[in-house]
């Protein structure tokens, strides 16, 4: 894309995009670390995920400040305006993704070693892998202004939803058969739900990327296969 006549405008936009790329990378890493901590019962790693979330929150605040400044001082128009508005909305969503990863990490101490062998626990990393890739691709789509990649992210959300439904049914069955495990299984259920929400949020990011890139909103998806409890 051609440069602005006013160079400082390009610098502002570049800084905005740089911050969002960093934020996305950190959110993605937080999901992966939280899942690793869960699988390995690594309490130190879990605590690190919780601590690192502060940086994600700080980036959100920084982006908000920068966006307000760009709107006030540069009066962005057309694709610039869409980019800046999308950036503002995306950081709000990525911050939530970070919170879900933090939430997963906080539950790690509650899941004891014998629970980690449960079948649903073995499903969770694969589920988280898909959600994490969605976050990765949604932010790559923003960086590249790639509407097709954004659409691909949106379409992948059903995979996460299907995973969730499967985990949900398995856990409920397990709890019925083993009432003593209800407390820990409830934590696992929340973790699954958090991952499912990460997928939804990545979808939201992708929808905003699509709008920023094309000026059109994505038509509403068929939510026939949405998560079981919704």
């Amino acid at each position, binding site marked *: 894309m051609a440069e602005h006549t006013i160079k400082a*405008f390009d610098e502002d936009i570049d800084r905005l995009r740089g911050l969002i790329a960093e934020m996305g990378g950190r959110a993605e890493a937080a999901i992966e670390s939280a899942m690793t901590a869960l699988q390995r019962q690594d309490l130190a790693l879990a605590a690190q995920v919780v601590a690192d979330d502060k940086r994600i929150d700080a980036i959100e605040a920084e982006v908000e400040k920068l966006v307000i400044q760009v709107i006030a001082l540069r009066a962005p*128009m*057309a*694709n610039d305006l869409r980019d800046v508005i999308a950036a503002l909305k995306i950081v709000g969503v990525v911050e939530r993704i970070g919170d879900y990863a933090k939430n997963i990490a906080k539950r790690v101490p509650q899941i004891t070693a014998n629970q980690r062998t449960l079948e649903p626990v073995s499903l969770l990393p694969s589920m988280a892998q898909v959600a994490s890739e969605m976050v990765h691709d949604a932010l790559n789509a923003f960086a590249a202004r790639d509407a097709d990649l954004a659409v691909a992210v949106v379409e992948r959300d059903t995979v996460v939803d299907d995973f969730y439904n499967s985990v949900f049914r398995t856990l409920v069955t397990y709890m019925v058969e083993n009432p003593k495990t209800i407390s820990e299984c409830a934590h696992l259920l929340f973790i699954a739900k958090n991952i499912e929400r990460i997928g939804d949020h990545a979808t939201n990011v992708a929808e905003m990327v699509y709008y920023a890139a094309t*000026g059109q909103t994505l038509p509403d998806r068929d939510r026939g296969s949405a998560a079981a409890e919704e």
Partner: protein
Amino acid sequence: MTEPTNPLAIANPKMSARDVKVFYGAKQAIKGVSIDVDMDNVTAFIGPSGCGKSTFLRTLNRMNDTVASARVEGTITLDGEDIYSPSMDVVQLRARVGMVFQKPNPFPKSIYENIAYGPRIHGLAHAKADLDVVVEKSLRRAGLWDEVKDRLHDSGTALSGGQQQRLCIGRAIAVEPEVILMDEPCSALDPIATAKIEELIHELRGRYAIVIVTHNMQQAARVSQRTAFFHLGDLVEYGVTGDIFTNPTQERTKDYITGRYG
């Protein structure tokens, strides 16, 4: 040459231009522009210097007739009537299609006379009482009455720049025009005087078809419902103002309004 994209289908255009070309001697300034403007919307013409927006505006009330080397081709109609037809009375046309210029240009006469002059020579009012009514009504519509009602016989040129411009708008309004053309009406004014003119344009909308040429894109965004982007004599894009400024369809429009032009 590009076809104008997204030509707005306007059911009852006040003015219509079809394949209008303007030449200054051998140089072509307008390369075949077709556009409709209506009563219900303010239409803004934007584009870089030399794009032809002012030249095109001036074809709408035959101001280019006064430029010896200028030649206009194509058709321009006012209520379906060809304004370049030999039977068109140009003086009458310019009363129906009024114009406000970049620099306020009141007559060196009293405020009252600035307004009364047009209605008097066009035979719209003769008796003092009738003229008084026209002067008050025009100054009220121009948003100037309260500021000048106690000094109507002071010179128009003694007013501030913003007041002078509103006086010129009042002068255009006094002859009961149908269309008002504004050629960068705020470029010589400060932000507060500009805001008053913009508010006035908003109030006049619907009563007159208004076409405004502006260098200030924010102004086009604020005052208009339709925006036309001109570049190198072409009408590149014409659309709903909200769409032009959030999602223009043409690369040249986008580059211009986002400040990437050049």
